[in-house]
């Protein structure tokens, strides 16, 4: 059933008793042309674009738990393309463009809210770095505006501008088109749209192994039996190393936990997405009124979706210091997501030594905002066995040649990106 205001009014008359399932719950078939391992945002997006852009629909998306239970539903919902390295800028900008039309494309309101993404700086050195980044964005055709202290104050009055501020605000770099998206809706919207095009989305189906013969992938073993496939795509974010290992892949990835926090709901106090320069701390107010934000990585390998108190204390101190009004606001809940951190802070979308097996992962913090472009370019790679021009530099070979895409400049220390 197509969604619209009319549909809602019609269904209201019948007490909403006739809304259909948003996606089917099919039994897995014996074989598919393509099997995608991972029913998170990226897997579902890949499935959708395989159908939409390449007309391929004999596809199964296998999800070990319930659909969208991974990072797609555990992030801070921020979308932006204000990266430093040109390859990342181009990729994330394509993603942002896709976000801008996604609700209409999927006929599912993902509530894109482009209220701007602001990065605040506190020292001349940080300002110069921000200028370098902002110009890099502009030269790549991406929007960026440099703000002075007054400009930042106008945009985010809740920040501390008093003389007692430990790290006074000097200015900020704004990407006006940045913003946030209702994260769960993205998974559901892609699932519904992919399902509508005939793709099987199979929940509670865990991949336990890969069938590989003579260097070519033949299918996967799952908790619900073996499923044959001509092509297989691995797109499992935080579990990349584990699933990759089943297929004999060794990856430049560590899994780290990143904590997210949400406060009680209050009336609008912060209109834009704000990242602070003196600490890992990005914050956005959801349409529901809660302030959602994240801090630094906990900083050690982890597959437990929970973090530790030290980070909570740091985040609280940052919150109460950068936005003094938050001192009396209450923290409601915090949780952890498993981030697949690469050695240079940039993603991997690539063929593998195994014919017909493709890998998508290493999203670090960028996973959510990358969702549409990741699906778009991964679908292209799977369909054509050739990398999409936007993702050609996200290869594994870059770590041998040294042509890494190091966003933070901190080198092969995933915990520091």
């Amino acid at each position, binding site marked *: 059933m197509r969604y*619209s205001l009319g*549909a*809602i009014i019609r269904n209201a008359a019948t*007490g*909403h*008793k006739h*809304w259909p399932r948003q*996606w089917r719950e099919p039994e897995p078939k014996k074989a598919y042309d393509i099997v995608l391992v991972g029913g998170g945002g990226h897997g579902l997006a890949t499935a959708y674009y395989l159908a939409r852009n390449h007309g391929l629909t004999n596809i199964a998306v296998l999800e070990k738990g*319930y*659909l969208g239970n991974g990072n797609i539903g555990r992030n801070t919902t921020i979308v932006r393309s204000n990266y430093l390295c040109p390859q990342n800028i181009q990729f994330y900008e394509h993603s942002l463009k896709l976000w801008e039309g996604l609700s209409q494309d999927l*006929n599912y*309101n993902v509530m894109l809210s*482009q209220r701007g993404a602001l990065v605040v700086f*506190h*020292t001349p050195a940080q*300002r*110069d*770095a*921000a*200028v*370098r*980044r*902002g*110009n*890099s964005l502009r*030269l*790549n055709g991406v929007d960026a505006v440099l703000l002075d202290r007054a400009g930042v104050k106008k945009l985010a009055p*809740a920040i501390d501008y008093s003389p007692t501020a*430990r*790290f006074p605000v000097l200015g900020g770099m704004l990407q006006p088109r940045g913003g946030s998206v209702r994260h*769960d809706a993205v998974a*559901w*919207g892609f699932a519904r749209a992919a399902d509508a095009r005939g793709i099987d989305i199979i929940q509670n189906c865990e991949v336990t192994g890969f069938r590989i013969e003579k260097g070519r992938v033949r299918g996967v073993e799952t908790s619900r039996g073996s499923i044959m496939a001509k092509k297989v795509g691995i797109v499992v974010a935080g579990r990349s190393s584990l699933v990759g290992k089943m297929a004999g892949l060794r990856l430049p990835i560590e899994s780290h936990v990143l904590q997210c926090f949400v406060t009680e709901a*209050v009336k*609008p*106090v912060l209109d834009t997405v704000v990242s602070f320069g003196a600490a890992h701390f990005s914050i956005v107010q959801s*349409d*529901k*009124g809660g302030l959602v934000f994240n801090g630094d990585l906990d900083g050690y390998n982890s597959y437990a979706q929970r973090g*530790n*108190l030290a980070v*909570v204390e740091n985040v609280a*101190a940052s919150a*109460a*210091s950068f936005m*003094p009004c*938050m*001192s*009396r606001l*209450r*923290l*409601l809940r*915090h949780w952890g997501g498993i981030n697949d951190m690469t050695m240079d802070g940039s993603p991997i979308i690539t063929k593998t030594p195994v014919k017909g097996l493709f890998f998508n992962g290493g999203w670090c913090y960028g996973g959510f905002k990358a969702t549409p472009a990741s699906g778009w370019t991964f679908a292209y790679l799977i369909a054509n066995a050739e990398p999409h021009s936007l993702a050609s530099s996200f290869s594994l070979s870059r770590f*041998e*040649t*040294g042509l*890494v895409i190091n966003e933070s400049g*901190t*080198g*092969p220390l995933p915990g520091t990106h």
Partner: protein
Amino acid sequence: MSRQSNRLPEGGLIDRARSISFTFDGREFDAHPGDTLASALLANGVHLTGRSFKYHRPRGIYSAGPEEPNALVTLGKGGRTEPNTPATMVEVYDGLDARSQNRWPSLKFDLLAVNSLLKPFFPAGFYYKTFMWPRSFWYRLYEPMIRRAAGLGTLANESDPDRYEKAHAHCDVLVVGAGPAGLMAAREAARAGAKVLLADDQPLPGGHLTGENIDIDGKPGAAWAGGIADELKEMENVRVLTRTCLYGRYDGMTFGAVERVGDHLASNSTLPRQRSWIIQAKHLINAAGAIERPLVFAGNDRPGVMLAGAARAYVNRYGVLPGRNAVVFTNNDDAYRTACDLAAAGANVTLVDSRSADKSRSRAILPESVETQFGQCISKVKGRSHVRGLTLAPSGIEIACNLICVSGGWTPSIHLLSHIGHRPEWHEATSSFVMREPGDEACTAGGAAATFDLGRTLREGVAAGRAAAKACGCRVSGKAGIPKADALPDYAIEPLWRVPAAMTKAQESFVDFQNDVTVADLELAQREGFGHAEHAKRYTTLGMATDQGKLANVNALGILADLQGRPIAETGTTTFRPLTSPVAFGAIAGQERGSAYRPVRHSAMHSWHENNGAVFTQAGLWLRAYYYPREGEDFSAAVKREVLAVRSSVGMVDVSTLGKIELKGPDAGTFLDRLYINSFSKMKVNRARYGVMLREDGMVFDDGTVSRLGDEHYFITVTTANASGVMQHMEFCHQVHWPELDVQFCTVSEAWSAMAVAGPNARDVLASAVEGLDLSNDAFPFMAVGEGTIRGVPVWVFRISFSGELAYEVYTPAGFGLGVWQTIMEAGKPLGITAYGTEAMTVMRTEKGHVAGPELDGRTTAADLGLGRMMSLKKDFIGRWMAGRSGLEGAGRLQLVGLKPVGKSETFRMGAHLVNDLGVTGVDVSQGHVTTCVYSPVYGHYIGLAVLKNGRGRSGETLHVVSPLHNEVVEVEVVDPVFVDPGGEKMRV
């Protein structure tokens, strides 16, 4: 001032001798010490306290504890404004000011209550299905509308004037909850000699006993509890924290708690408002009790409907009768006591039991006056802003009433066990989720273990306390005395997740009050494929309100299970995340707010810089002198003056923030050879040399000078930014890579103050100040190192130059730093010595083509920076092997170059990019970027350093420097990065 119409003539744990007054929505009421805002409002006949989140339905006080979903108020004014505070947790003090929320213009008349009429069009997730056309309307119209409607209270945009602090506590046994189980557990563990910490979120010990009319050992429950608590407070191995909420459990038995130290005080000068505790325990006893479940029927959210246990608490603890004509609706025997206590307090009570008469175990305890209805459910409720009556089904009987007390059974509080990932299991007998934690780190007793009989609760408490003490290695001896308690009726619950659809309207039956999630919403979620507990939660927002689903979750799971026709055990549950109850950020931050957010580091000469008008800049945690403006000077004028002073005569800069590491031992030289790309083991004693370190991936990590002070004695400086990182790296290399080396080293950054004296007259100035060291060029050439004294104070002098001038760095024990600085300033007066800041230093190092932070951005190799020649390939060193990779040596690298504008008057800036052609965008447009750009007073125009694609081969080329952010385009010529004195004669004179 309105009188307390619902206050009972006697009873309760309040101080009736004293009266205090408070205001709610501007109206003044009176109360007694011991009241909560909720009990005081009820005493004054106020039920309507707030509006719901989505439909703005009128809502009243529903509970008597932290789980309160409806009665959320805003306290205080200005910087003390505190939204979303449960009235049930606010202790009334004289002058308390509270306001209702989420209504306009007033609580009684709220315009957005229109949402309630549009309810049919706002089912769960309706927004996913609409607001898509026309596209622009979403962010112009729909979203702003939604944002304004959403949210509860309002934050004041002012800083919080109150104090907060953090404290750490260590104990053997942490007991959560000072109810009967917790008190027993704490006493037993303490008697066995264990270090015990007992925490409870209420001001009074006793847990639910404070709200009951039950005797233990012949004393009223609350009095008995008080006695035990006093006994505990006397013991030196026990710490009792009241008003303290355990908000989270973390790995390694670390717990977070917040104590409300000053919230209940009318005025408080020395104490913090709240104190957050970080508790380290060996063993946890979860005696947090249980929370009562609502019953789900049409109109179950109307003011006047409340939990049966809460009604009991208002009568027994606060001496308040919430309503004179009461109906108690239950599916278990526990609520019978509510009927008894209400009746005893003089109310007309009807008891409605969804079970058949034979299921009830305790009809006997009901007084004559209580009328009973078995096998009946409430199907309709009369009254909008207050209950006026109800209808039963199937009988259709109508009852007039102004209070409905509901009990759907009890939900054990198991959050602390599930925070670290354990999953609960379904317990059929009590229809509740319980948790038995593997291992011996934690156990549960009493209500939290679904034990609802007082006698057994006390016994479990004793057992838990002894077991915990044993687990902590204490000797447990003797027999424990177990207090005598009145027998309670059996619980005998018969699940009723919702009043059957046939009897009542699903759209009006609320499961989650605050977020307005109804049974109909859950049915819709199930219909559309969101049947999984987590999906349903996310699709309907059930359990996401401030009460975190404490009231709603189990009923919701039951309803979903029924819809799916499978047992609740199979639908699974959603995970409980920290926090158990919301906590203010200020409390968790403690003292780390505002100016105390992070410590500040000062050099020993800081006071001098201050007194001489320095403007400071942040360098990590350090404050460094940026420049020293004089009367009427702006930034550039001051910097220009400082630079010219150095270039023409002499100046001095404070470089104490540099990291300094001292190395000793026979292998110190070898160690340094392996850390740096160049070699030092062969360097002569009393000589210094510039050194570069790489990361193992071949990128430049840090640079600085290495000096040899003795055969087995080296001294190195590292950049301010990397000081700690380099030390850590060196410790790793020594302890992990090369433990065979006999080298000892440690940070001495703070032991030495350091200042650079630079300029043609530097030698004359120093010569007149330093004794015992011949500074003549022959005796003390470029890169020489020597010891001397200044006014009897020891100094090390290093002849090194960052500015390109004749220069010396003077190091002295930090305690003498200020004195030595002043002495040199004195000595330099005749030659007009000038103090210069970090900006002038940047200008001069740029003129000299020295790289620094902006060039060492972690993406550049030594070769990129023109330092490739320094690599000594005769040896192994960190990063050597990766530095040779094709991608790092091949074409297309960004290499260091110098820039000068073609038009001398042109200005450009750091962060601008280099392009071949204008007006194009794309991935390859940028040829590199300006890393450093300064106005050179010497040349009278701007100069810059940049990293440029294949830059070294492009000298003489003209390119555009563009800063689209500033709409700037400047034509520049690519030149050698060393502007001043390429031959380096000046440094060597």
